[in-house]
């Protein structure tokens, strides 16, 4: 339900558009991080353990 005091206006479109506007920036972040991990690997630095099970414990360990 999109509650809006102005019923013909839809907040949903703005939510899509801002994602598209952020897309380049956020995608770049993920790209840079993955490259950084690769470079570190080349120098023999092990990435932080982020295997699937680790990730699941995220919620639990908070």
């Amino acid at each position, binding site marked *: 339900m999109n*509650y809006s005091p102005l019923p013909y206006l*839809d*907040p949903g479109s703005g939510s899509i558009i801002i994602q598209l506007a952020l897309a380049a920036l956020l995608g770049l972040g993920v790209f840079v991080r993955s490259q950084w991990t690769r470079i570190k690997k080349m120098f023999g630095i092990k990435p932080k353990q982020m295997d699937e099970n680790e990730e699941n414990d995220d919620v*639990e360990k908070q």
Partner: protein
Amino acid sequence: MTTLKNNERLSTSFRDPSGFLFARDEKLYRQVNHSYSQDYTFLIESGLYDRLLKANLLIPHTEVGVQPIEPKSAFKVICPEQVRFISYPYEWSFSQLKDAALATIAVQKHALKFEMSLKDASAYNIQFHKGKPILIDTLSFEVYKDGAPWVAYRQFCQHFLAPLALMAKTDVRLSQLMRVYIDGVPLDLASRLLPASTCLNFGLLTHIHLHARAQMRYADAGAVNDRLEKTSRERMTKQALQGLIESLENTVKQLEWKPVGTEWGDYYNMTNYTDSAFEHKKNIISEWVRRLNPRQVWDVGANNGVFTRLASAQGIPAIAFDIDPAAVEQNYRQVKSARETNILPLVQDLTNPSPSLGWHTRERNAFLERAPADMVFALAVIHHLAISNNVPLYLLADFFHDLGKWLVIEFVPKTDSQVQKLLASRLDIFDQYTVDDFERIFGARFAILEKVKVRESERFLYLMEKRD
């Protein structure tokens, strides 16, 4: 706990065309509609379902041969593992809402790895089950479409990020906005209520402040079309989508709230109980619980749950209600650190309990609609209701009569120093607040099975059973 009406569609899942919940023989089932068959099959066959079960993030279910309620549209009927008690985000403490948000994010991250995505990110789809937040809506997934933005982004921000930010940065009591706005806190409102300093936080700046601006700016179709024409070739790459999810996750993780400076923060250091009286009280209650072995216990006015644990430690599922978000927060942190599975702390104001809400006021159940409990604890609470809140004893007896079968209640007489404190600032108009009146008035609604004076105190503990 609530008696489920046979073959009735639950009024909580009417918005979803993918399926709905219904009750039969005191059990909940979910009908999966034909229109959702592809997504459902993909969820199971891709391995995502098993992965989420392993991670304890999705409620397990079995496919059953039960006759569907609407056979024409039915693809399958599934029986999910039954959740003991349905609670709502306006009843959660800060960390409970935060963990529910992180559980939603964790589900979405797994889903993307399996080429699926969450189409809903409603806080109401998360429940606390065996001590942990878990997704209960099996029909929340859709096959990921390459290039598509996250359709549940707005909902995630309204249901989780906005209330968490408001609780952490403005005032913890703003969690109650979730009670007013059934689809989460409107972002323009959150943006106005948050301090300006939150604009310096990248996550809050983008996901709340700029997000709210974008919603206003592109709320009207003309502006949207102009903008979409310009961005028609822009797509949300999967990498960008992952970036969005990670950004939300980091923003949520950075939000903190510490339970200090509230009413009950160090309540047990301020009581008038001696150690020996405290132990005596614990022993009496433990003994009654052991003897009656109730199916579940509701502790109203539970503070940080020290007495609730007398039941949960015996393996009895217990809910610890308290008005103070700091006490509930402390209790929840204890549940987490000790990995307790059968105690659920919740925020509840007994003088104004959760009402029924939503469409036809049937979407979210009132506090009392989720009763009765087998056994109710009302310890050191009656003087607050009777004296601070002016509720006459006969109305208290009525209320507790609706709440559960057995009642463990502590009467705190006027001579008690805590009651004296309450009376210090108000006129004593409470003629009927005596042990005799209490026994007479409660005795009309309950059979008084036991009465024990707590050692080294002025207080009495009663075990009562309600009369039909």
